[in-house]
């Protein structure tokens, strides 16, 4: 059974915050929304692209597992009005 089935919201929030802090430490600043054993990363424009790196992605998945999350997903957000999503921002 997933640990999240028996866990309170406060504990899930704590684990999500710990995951966010760990991810920020490896260059992926984000907020983490816990949804049972799924962690949804909410990132600023351009940050999701960093997770295209396989090594970084594997490290992020390992950190998520350490906090009890079985699934990790990054939210895709619409580009801000006037932004050109095809160009990296300075």
């Amino acid at each position, binding site marked *: 059974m997933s640990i999240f089935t028996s866990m309170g919201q406060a504990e899930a929030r704590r684990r999500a915050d710990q995951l966010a802090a760990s991810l920020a430490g490896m260059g992926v600043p984000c907020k983490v929304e816990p949804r049972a*054993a799924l962690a949804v990363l909410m990132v600023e424009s351009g940050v999701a692209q960093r997770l295209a790196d396989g090594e970084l992605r594997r490290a992020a998945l390992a950190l998520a597992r350490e906090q009890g999350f079985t699934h990790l997903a990054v939210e895709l957000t619409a580009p801000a009005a006037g932004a050109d999503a095809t160009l990296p921002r300075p």
Partner: protein
Amino acid sequence: MSQTADADIDAVAELEQRAAAKEDALAEWFRARGRVAIGFSGGVDSAYLAVAARRTLGSENVLAIIGRSASYPAEQWATARRVADSFDVEVLELDTDEMNDPRYSANPANRCYFCKTELWGKLVPAAAARGFHTVVDGTNADDVGGYRPGMQAARENTVASPLAEVGFSKEEIRARSRALGLPTWQQPASPCLSSRLPYGTSVTPERLRLVERAERAVRELGISGDMRVRYHDDVARIELAPAELTTWLDPRRAEELRAAVAAAGFSRVALDLRGFRSGSLNVLHGVTTA
């Protein structure tokens, strides 16, 4: 030619030989029964099973039965009809009503048991009424060890699984499907749409249509391999083959993906960072381990 290439050719030849031997055993199995009705979805396994039965027994002794409901993707129905037409397999279509069974729509971990109970409960008598007293499904040897409560319903309704009985693996079924010219030979696995909803999230026709629209939108972007859109209320979590992740995390492609799934009706779109895994929601709920 390199030693690696030689080894690859040897492995393919060995696979084809092994699969052909199992097809002979399957033909024997069919001949011993004389007439068979097949639970036919148009997926890799049941399509191969129907064509193999037709080749062995002739069209008058084979009936492929499709159970139609909201959880059955329209594209898969089209594939099923195309295979049946191309290989001269007779088809019967029945409507199933699992959506109105509260034990199913509540979406417990054993949801498949209630779906298959409804399916076989209609299909087996319909087959018998047409003189088909052996009913089979497409369960293969790889399926036998997993968490599949639907298999219990098959056993309770005396539905046989000849592919599993003769030891056919998915890889071998694909090899024989390719040799026979079935269009399904490299089709991704395609379980019912309800498998996209986490256990405990009630199954409704609206939610299934939302997932179906979203998956169709993703396919229209050119993604042809294993893929799922998992429903998490307002969030669509997309699982792509791991090799696709780098491409679809590129900002321009990510925006295409987000826009396509949002247009299908999800307000938020997320990309799973591990990628596709069969039975993903079983892992999410601790029913199986990663």
